[in-house]
């Protein structure tokens, strides 16, 4: 963060080696409390676990004091719009907490699949990583734009996104409030990723929103 001039960040657990998300969420909570001026934590749950996942989501938001839920359909292997995912999203809905989705993974978290979940929960704010799609031909971009257009509660992150003009089009078509800067660290390099939001061809006002204003509003950080 310091190398890239980033003031605050949302942190989520990596995939734990022993696949136990509870201790990983506890670790994030501890780290966030130790660096409260710089970090906001999100808790990771695996909807495959049914009632256990619901209880962990409740613990994440009610006990650990984390700011939202993080779902990784690729690493936990579930389809983001599968019906059994609803139970954990409902926990977020009841508490007005945002949900970050590791997005763009084929068959499991494609743009329209995330859009389908967002349609079922219009009160929940969903954040799709990787611009909602991971494809170096841009083949998923139209589907993502359809999902963003149809679901005002869906915003995209910038990390690793193929094509600067995709990000510019999101701002131009849907508004700067639909895009959040993210570094995707440690998969991506924050020193490079921040340039996507600093150097793309939009107004200074839009850049300020993407770089921090939107995230501050989403997380209730007060600007």
């Amino acid at each position, binding site marked *: 963060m310091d190398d890239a001039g980033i003031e605050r960040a949302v942190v989520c657990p990596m995939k734990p080696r022993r696949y136990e998300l509870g201790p990983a969420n506890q670790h994030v909570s501890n780290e966030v409390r130790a660096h409260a001026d710089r970090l906001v934590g999100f808790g990771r749950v695996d909807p495959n676990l049914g009632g256990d996942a619901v209880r962990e989501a409740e613990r994440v938001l009610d006990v650990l004091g984390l700011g939202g839920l993080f779902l990784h359909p690729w690493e936990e292997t579930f389809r983001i719009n599968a019906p059994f995912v609803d139970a954990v999203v409902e926990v977020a809905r009841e508490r007005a907490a945002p949900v970050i989705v590791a997005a763009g993974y084929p068959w499991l978290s494609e743009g329209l699949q995330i859009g389908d979940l967002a349609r079922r929960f219009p009160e929940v704010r969903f954040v799709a990583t990787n611009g909602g799609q*991971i*494809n*170096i*031909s841009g083949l998923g971009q139209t589907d993502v734009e359809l999902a963003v257009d149809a679901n005002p509660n869906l915003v995209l992150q910038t990390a690793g996104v193929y094509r*600067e003009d995709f990000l510019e089009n999101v701002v131009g078509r849907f508004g700067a409030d639909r895009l959040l800067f993210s570094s995707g660290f440690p998969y*991506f390099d924050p020193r*490079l990723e921040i*340039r996507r939001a600093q*150097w793309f061809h939009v107004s200074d006002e839009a850049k300020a929103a993407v770089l921090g204003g939107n995230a501050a509003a989403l997380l209730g950080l007060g600007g």
Partner: protein
Amino acid sequence: MIIDAHMHVDDIPALGWKMGADLVVERLDEAGIDRGVVMTIVDAPEVNPNALELVAEALAAYPDRLDAFARIHPWYGDEAVALLERAFELGFKGLKLHPVSSIAHPAGEDTLRLIRIAAAHTAPTLFHCGDEPMTTPLAVAPAAEAVPEATIILGHMGGYFHVDEAIEVAERVPNLVLETSAMPYPQKIAEAVERLGAERVIYASDGPVCSPRIEVEKVRVAGLDAEAERLVLGENAQRILEAVT
């Protein structure tokens, strides 16, 4: 000398994409890049029978800033061959293939025929090399092995999930060159240089719609030594382009 080895000019109303030569040069200037290699998004003769002319107009407008590769659809047999030969007469410097959009496998005989013609001109063939079927490093490698005299460039060096595979394949297939455009991991550039040698890695952006400025920054963030950075950012591409007959 910085050369951007993979850029586009095209006009595709169906997608709302208009990438003119003026925008290409504007982005080159923004990034401090000397020259760019432009090509269309779609192939000749289909879906654009005038694709070569479109690129030739860009070359004529900016002869000091632009070079060109020809996108030719391998399905079109003798017509494709004639188009590629015509491209070299027009001063094009290489062949570009995008197997997932053309549905023409890199190791298919129609494709190999075009690669051999390019190689006869000492010209490279640039493949889109990402995560889609028919474009992965293991899909392209047999083409490089079938035409060992050809220089085969893996554009995007494997995309998002096939970058390690691209480096591994290039270690055993010596006529493969890795091209950095849009691949999002700076440290993989450093790793490729370490494992393959700086002579086999070339900078490109896939601009103007991918940002050349950001793509150059990616190479800088990779932290190469000065000689390797010079080779990657321009001298390798210059050597490849100047060899074309």
